[in-house]
């Protein structure tokens, strides 16, 4: 049996690297220890020679196998995608707070690579028998990771699913599906629009935020955002206090 480890730093082994869409990759890593991870939490990866580790939402988790889904964006992700099965990968985590799962009819909205955190959350909700609808927006059909089952897809160019931004369909989705809670992960503007729309309907929305991070544990204060707490606006770290926040707490820019 795998033992649990108290320290959150691992030399893991790459067990799978696969291109899953025109721009994204799936990498699965095997940790020498069993870890507990909540949907919405992230891991941070050391990328050969780079100063800052790169944070990624966990996409899949089974005992000691952790999967992340990422888009190739620069030097860090280019390094990770170049890893081969059997290579060592330096991981810290799980970091941050995950989604606070409620036993409520749930609408999950992913946009772009934000689909990763939503897919993990969906598997958690399914496991707990919580009714949910998982929708996602992409630029076009080539961007859709082939490893994910999504209930409803929206593409900007209409190459598959409904045509247009997922944001254009928010009212329709809420009115038709009548969710009691919304969870979302994606670009800032998407999170902001969903938070504002949810507020109009009086719905709770939990958003998974993203920000450039250095330490990943709340000490460097590099990734702070403004959060409303008890009527006051306070500097709050995305890495430790987040990355999941209530949409109504975030001071949107």
């Amino acid at each position: 049996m795998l033992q649990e480890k108290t320290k959150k730093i691992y030399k893991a082994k790459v067990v799978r690297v696969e291109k899953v869409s025109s721009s994204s990759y799936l990498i699965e890593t095997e940790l020498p220890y069993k870890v507990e991870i909540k949907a919405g939490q992230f891991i941070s990866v050391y990328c050969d020679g780079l100063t800052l580790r790169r944070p990624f939402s966990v996409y899949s988790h089974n005992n000691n196998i952790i999967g992340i889904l990422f888009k190739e964006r620069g030097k860090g992700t280019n390094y990770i995608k170049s890893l081969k099965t059997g290579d060592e990968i330096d991981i810290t985590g799980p970091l941050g707070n995950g989604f606070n799962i409620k036993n409520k009819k749930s609408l999950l909205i992913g946009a772009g690579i934000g689909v990763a955190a939503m897919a993990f959350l969906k598997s958690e909700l399914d496991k707990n028998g919580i009714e949910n609808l998982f929708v996602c927006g992409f630029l076009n059909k080539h961007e859709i990771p082939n490893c994910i089952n999504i209930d409803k897809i929206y593409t900007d160019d209409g190459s598959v699913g409904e045509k247009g931004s997922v944001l254009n369909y928010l009212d329709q989705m809420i009115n038709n599906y009548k969710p009691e809670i919304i969870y979302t992960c994606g670009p800032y503007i998407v999170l902001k629009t969903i938070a504002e729309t949810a507020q109009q309907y009086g719905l709770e929305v939990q958003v998974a935020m993203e920000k450039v991070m250095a330490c990943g544990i709340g000490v460097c204060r590099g990734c702070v955002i403004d959060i409303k707490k008890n009527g006051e606006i306070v500097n709050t770290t995305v890495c430790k206090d987040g990355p999941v926040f209530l949409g109504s707490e975030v001071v949107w820019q």
Partner: protein
Amino acid sequence: MAVMTNILQTDLNGIILKNPIMTASGTYGYNNEYDDFINVSSLGAIVTKAISLNPREGNKHTRITETEAGMINSIGLENVGVEKFINEKLPVLKSENIDFFVNVAGSTLDEYCQVAKICDENNIKAIELNVSCPNVKSGCLEFGVDEKSLYELVSSVRKEYGGFLTVKLTPNVTSIEKLGVAAQNAGANAISAINTLKGSKIKISCINGRVQKEIITGGYSGRGIKPVAIGIVIRLSKAVDIPIIGIGGIETLEDVLEFLSAGADAVQIGTANFTHPDIAQKLVSELEEYIIKNGFKDLNELKKELRK
């Protein structure tokens, strides 16, 4: 049972550390945050995030960005303030047996003195005066670039604080020797060198034929500043008699040896904690192994040999 002698013991002229590996202010939080990755109490000492008299919110704009061989930060000394530090952070340092220095920052001479006095009243054994933060509008750096102001500041703080006092110098000056001597003459026990180098990065993107740019200015740290830091430690060690705590881009045992050779008696690990959060504890073991493997009696003997 044989008596275990600590071969890494480090005498810094007023305080004895169990080893010379420390962690730099701003990269290690206030107390046990890195317990997620290592046993923090195994380090020579941690230096807390800079503490000012009142809480500070820090800067609003982009705070960190990666660069070719390190990073630029412009946090702006966000911290909880000395009162909250004493009430909430200090008890954890004590209960977990973590050796620490409190990094003290201020906008005015009076503010430095007040924080130092509070540290003295709370029996804090060591403080590091931050006269080198490049990211705040007033105070701090202005004391660190002029030897007369520095002398006045350090001697005023010295009157309020009886414990171990080190002064963290900025490399953003013409004659570091004069500042080192001023700190020494004003009663500092040691000098910490260096803080970050002032630098900028311009992020450029082009959308539909229009260039958009963001200029991020702050303190440059990480691997890239090591040669600057080594150069300054060499210069300081010729100018002052008090110990020097070397800081700047340390990531490996070779880096530590280089600093010891340049004249540092202890070192602080900064940015590398972000890259490898267990690095400081690793360096403690690697340094110990190196001393044993090469047949030195202890760290002091290694230092002597390195400085021949």
